[in-house]
């Protein structure tokens, strides 16, 4: 990873505990530029495209929410969804950049209350 990538911090927020059947809100944020490829820098040079085109969230290994994303999503990349909790849950998030070479992950654990 380059020095620049170090700044692309993934964040995944979930409550620490939930009652069985409770609906909880999951919040995710990736500090990614979401560069559309259609902008120019101050010297008039094209700024290359750099987009997270996919985000995927699993609960205990099973996909519960995913997004196909165009350059029309804001930077930083924010996604929030509600999830029904039935059992102790390990939540994992993955973001994939154009070219499939760079991905970022984050995880969170929800215990039963």
């Amino acid at each position, binding site marked *: 990873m380059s020095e620049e990538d170090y700044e692309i911090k993934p964040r995944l927020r979930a409550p620490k505990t939930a009652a069985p059947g409770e609906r909880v809100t999951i919040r995710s944020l990736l500090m990614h530029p979401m560069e559309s490829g259609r902008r*120019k820098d101050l010297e008039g040079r094209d700024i290359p495209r750099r987009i997270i085109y996919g985000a995927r969230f699993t609960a205990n290994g099973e996909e519960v929410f995913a997004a*196909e994303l*165009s350059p029309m999503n804001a930077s930083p990349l924010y996604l929030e969804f*509600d*999830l029904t909790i039935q059992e102790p849950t390990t939540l994992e998030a993955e973001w994939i950049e154009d070219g499939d070479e760079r991905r970022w992950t984050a995880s969170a654990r929800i215990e039963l209350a």
Partner: protein
Amino acid sequence: MLRTSSPPTDRLGGGRATRREALGGALALGALAAFGGGGAQAEETPRIGPATAEALAARGWSEAAFDPRLSLTLPEVVENGANAPVDLAMSDLPEGVFVKRLGLYAEANFTPEIAVYRFGPATGAPMRISARARLAESQTVLAVAELSDGSLLAADFPVKVAIGGCAG
């Protein structure tokens, strides 16, 4: 689905129109068509724009019908089009039915399809998500939900954008 591209027509000019007049006529007709045919047919303005309609067709979602159970909410005035909060929710679904996929569209953006979200039973019923979109200018944003029983529902929301923000 209404198409806005208008075929060349000879209705406007006899055979004697100059090239410039003919072109002007065709352009004027095209502009009228873009607003739903103009004149007496103005009330037929399609609720879904042509670029969005094309993106929906590619997903097999052309038959989506507006339904109040799907809610799409943005601020009425988005101060910064580079980061517009979008809230989507759906409830009152039949037992066992959940939202399977959900598309978000902005007709006046360079790329009308903002995102397509996928859900499972634990997230799709009731469904509630929040995202942040880029909006080039004031326009009507559209959402289409595909349910696990195959039905297709739509919702839209007109929004004023103070400063456009598609990042080019």
